[in-house]
């Protein structure tokens, strides 16, 4: 079950946390890759900044970078990861 509100919130968080200017969060597709040459093209330090913000905002711990990498594959994957962590 996709949590639409959480997905929209995460799109906003990505844009705000990474201080991306002149970019509508809704332009990020739910399944679009966040890292690498496709999709948003975020990099390693973007991932670290996002981990810090997500841990603060959602009260979860992202222990391991491999977990983080899978969780950060897309906004939809991130929403599923946070939901599972909070369950």
């Amino acid at each position: 079950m996709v949590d639409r509100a959480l997905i929209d919130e995460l799109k906003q968080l990505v844009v705000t946390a990474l201080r991306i200017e002149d970019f509508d969060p809704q332009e990020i597709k739910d399944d679009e890759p966040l890292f690498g040459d496709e999709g948003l093209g975020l990099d390693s330090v973007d991932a670290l900044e996002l981990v810090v913000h997500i841990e603060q905002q959602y009260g979860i711990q992202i222990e391991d970078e491999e977990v983080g990498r899978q969780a950060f594959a897309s906004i939809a994957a991130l929403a599923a990861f946070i939901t599972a962590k909070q369950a």
Partner: protein
Amino acid sequence: MKNILYVLLIMSAVLALNGCGGSRSDGGAVLAPGQVAKLSDFSANQFDHKVYIRGMTKAARNTLFWQDPNAQLGEYQSVHVEGPSDQYLPVNPNFVHEPYVKGFAGSFNANLDLKLKATGKTLLVKTAVVECNPGSRAARYWVGMGAGKAVATVVVEVYEPGKDNPSLKIYGRDSASAGGFGGDSMAMINHIMQVMAVRVTTVLEERIDIAKTGR
């Protein structure tokens, strides 16, 4: 041939400084020197990336920086480089990191032009390699999806004379997982070190140059 490869490496790193993912703002209010972490806040082998990057802003691809708004970096004509320190690296009895730390030192010094300029008031530049992990070739080959990747992180801190807190911090982190059959870990770490040396020296010289010219 080696020179051509080196020039291509520098060109690709400089191009990457512009990065992707849209333009970034400076993040608004800048934290004061006492509010940001510095290397000496951490115990040996206990560097915390999440704590260190608080308050830092994107400078270039895979690179963050923080600068004291009251720093007077433009007043200095030269730098004295200390390091790189390896004391903050996590303990890994199965990996010898020294050759890669030396590799970073060589690339950093080769790319740093500031110290060659006229003598005068001197800034202290402390460098450290805080992460140097060759990853797992088997995991890269069998698991894929970024698993087992090689990763390295370097930190540069700039101190004005008589100050206990840095006036400028630069954090660079990169990873690699490409190559046939999982790739060569040692070559990847060497490549990451060289690319990051170019990135952090470029950001360092840019920040000091901005302070000099006011742009």
